């Protein structure tokens, strides 16, 4: 049934090589001397905030209930989508459906064309990042202004976001200041308040003249046909209020049944994402302006995108569709902390990104390697507000990858060798002996650690040392130990007999 969705086109004008091979992307991140400090500091702050705010309420119950609600949503997805569509249409809004990125972009391009749109303002949205909407609109000559401060900065610098909720987490104040000087002709300053006020001034003009506002959707309420977006800056509210047309792009899994469910998820989201009780703004749009409204959009469109989600459900990865995009799993992940978001080479980074990037029809180089880039420590599962079993999903993906024959040559050989060595006791003992002699030889029998080893082990010894195999194998040592104990027992026994004999 599920037709194969078209793979996205890569974005050509990024200032970084987003599509380099995975190993190169990781190497680049590890060699960035500021990245780990910048990322580490911020994710720690966000994680502390999450724990504090989940801790001051019954956070465990909040997670359990949010998950239960979302499981019900997935189980009843078609009915809820239909009721959302029906209610939103009755409110005067328009619902569009898109199988993939190309269809979604075509729908929005068509809307822009019909309405002679000259400029677009956008509120931060991962769904539109996923489908590369900005590039599609810019290709038809329509400038798009990202209005979330973080997105604005990386748009100025031609980079994709590196975190689900903190797109510019990888940049230091000094770098941001430089971008403002280069791109906005701002006098040099490190004062965040001055930089922020310059951006406000600049973007306010964009809000006043834009014809179309585009946002994502944090959740949409089926019983009312409401699209909810959460922001702290107020750009979401401006995007959904000032332009004549308002378009919201959402994945089909973003539905919640009732208004109460929306508030439940909202609180789980805010507490998990940024450690806030509530974000500063939540804008709930039901439709275009009504009789008494003097402001608000004249037209309201919602684009529902599948883009691989129905296939994800069909392939047994439906649990990943519970995700409410809070970014908590990124903030606790030891791998994300080291390599940052760009190394994942995908719109979605961190543990959830490693799960969904290979499953969505996105252009990601070496997407199959992402599930392997995890220590499976389980911190992500503990942080997740909907308790997604991310380590299990990662293991499932690894298993799929191996079943598809994507095992590295050395690993295959090593397993073959292992199987051979384990096939008889004699072979096993010989293999152990050989490993011992070879590794002792390489350390020069000096008792020190191995500092270099032949490939493929050289990958390990490049950055770490390896203790050599013991001179005598465990079995040999065990044999001796048993022998010694027997001898000791025999000695004891004879000594005992002697004393006994003596007392007679």
């Amino acid at each position, binding site marked *: 049934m599920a037709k194969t969705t078209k793979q996205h086109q890569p974005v050509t004008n990024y200032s970084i090589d987003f599509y380099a091979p995975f190993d190169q992307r990781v190497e680049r991140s590890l060699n960035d001397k500021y990245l780990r400090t910048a990322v580490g500091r911020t994710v720690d702050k966000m994680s502390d905030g999450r724990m504090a705010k989940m801790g001051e309420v019954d956070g465990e119950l909040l997670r359990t209930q949010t998950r239960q609600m979302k499981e019900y949503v997935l189980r009843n997805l078609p009915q809820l989508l239909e009721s959302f569509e029906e209610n939103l249409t009755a409110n005067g809004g328009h619902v569009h459906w898109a199988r993939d990125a190309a269809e979604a972009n075509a729908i929005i391009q068509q809307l822009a064309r019909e309405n002679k749109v000259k400029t677009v303002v956008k509120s931060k949205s991962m769904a539109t990042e996923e489908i590369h909407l900005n590039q599609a609109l810019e290709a038809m000559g329509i400038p798009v202004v990202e209005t979330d401060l973080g997105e604005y900065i990386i748009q100025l610098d031609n980079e994709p976001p590196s975190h689900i909720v903190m797109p510019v987490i990888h940049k230091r104040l000094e770098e941001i200041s430089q971008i403002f000087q280069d791109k906005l002709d701002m006098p040099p300053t490190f004062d965040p308040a001055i930089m922020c006020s310059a951006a406000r001034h600049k973007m306010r003009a964009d809000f006043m003249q834009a014809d179309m506002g585009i946002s994502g959707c944090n959740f949409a309420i089926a019983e009312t046909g409401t699209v909810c977006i959460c922001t702290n800056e107020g750009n979401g509210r401006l995007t959904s209020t000032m332009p004549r047309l308002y378009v919201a792009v959402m994945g089909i899994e973003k539905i919640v049944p009732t208004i109460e469910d929306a508030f439940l998820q909202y609180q789980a989201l805010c507490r998990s994402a940024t450690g806030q009780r*509530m974000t500063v703004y939540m804008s709930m749009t039901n439709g275009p302006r009504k009789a008494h409204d003097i402001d608000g959009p004249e037209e309201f469109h919602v684009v529902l995108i599948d883009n691989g989600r129905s296939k994800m459900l069909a392939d047994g990865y439906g649990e990943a569709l519970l995700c409410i995009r809070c970014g908590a799993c990124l903030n606790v992940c030891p791998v994300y902390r080291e390599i940052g978001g760009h190394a994942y080479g995908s719109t979605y980074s961190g543990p959830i990104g490693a799960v969904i990037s290979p499953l969505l029809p996105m252009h990601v180089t070496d997407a199959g390697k992402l599930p392997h880039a995890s220590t499976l420590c389980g911190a992500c599962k503990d942080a997740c507000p909907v308790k997604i079993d991310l380590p299990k999903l990662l293991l499932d993906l690894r298993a799929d990858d191996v079943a598809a024959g994507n095992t590295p040559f050395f690993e295959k050989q090593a397993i073959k060798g292992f199987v051979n060595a384990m096939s008889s006791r004699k072979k096993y003992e010989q293999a152990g002996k050989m490993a011992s002699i070879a590794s002792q030889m390489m350390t020069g029998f000096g008792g020190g650690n191995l500092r270099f080893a032949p490939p493929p082990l050289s990958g390990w010894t490049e950055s770490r040392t390896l203790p050599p195999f013991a001179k005598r194998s465990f079995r040999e040592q065990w044999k001796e130990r048993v022998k010694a104990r027997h001898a000791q027992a025999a000695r004891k026994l004879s000594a005992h007999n002697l004393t006994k004999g003596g007392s007679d």
Partner: protein
Amino acid sequence: MSARDEILSSVKGTLARHDLWFPPHDARPLTRAERMTVTSGPTAPIDLANRFGKELATLHGSYEVVSTVPGARMACVNRIMSWIDEEKSERKGMALNTGQEMELLGWRAENLALDGIDEGLKAVGLRLITPESVDTVEDRDAVRLIRYGITGVEAAFASTGSMIMASSEPGANRIASLLPFRHLALIPFSKLYPTAEAWMAELRQFGNFAEWIRTHANLSLITGPSKSADLEGNLTLGVHGPKFVHAILFDDIGGLGTARPWDTDDLSDEEYNR
């Protein structure tokens, strides 16, 4: 087949499979009785007002609690005048000369739930601007440089210091709480609720809540002044929305002690959803 039908029938087909391990086949919705109230707040009006203020203050907003309507009028005028002084002194003589220094962007006086506010503002020379349209460039130019906004609220939640703004009411608008640099919110005690959940429960009880929501094109929940931490984790206020949010909470119900019956747990789900 249209994209809509194809997506829906694909998902339906998948969900009909017996071997599908996720989502669980017996997944059930949260009932009203079991759904948690995440935060908790006090019940007496004066306690609600103080809690609301305290929460707003921790979010870098400010507040005052006033016991009478005339007192609230005075507080409101005083606050705007002191804001004007603040802005003047900040500019240190570099006057902006917009000619709009004494203008307030707001809801119509009758929507502010504060009797006589109109006269109070006029008496000190303040002009309440309530545009009929902001669609054209000229309309927008007339309001974009106004520094102060004044609005009422649809409801306010004490446990988080949040307020709900509802559009589509005659005389109300969205821009007054959005475009200006400083936002003054007038909150009568009668609009205070301990939590968002209490507000929703009351509306469910008194009629078709979903229908009520849909009669408004937009509802906005506002919790404190606009902010961002995007500049390397530094807190910056007033990024797009107001940098200053000040709430004047005033007693419009006379008698500060009577608590309202917030607890609706004794109702059955059916009664509740009626």
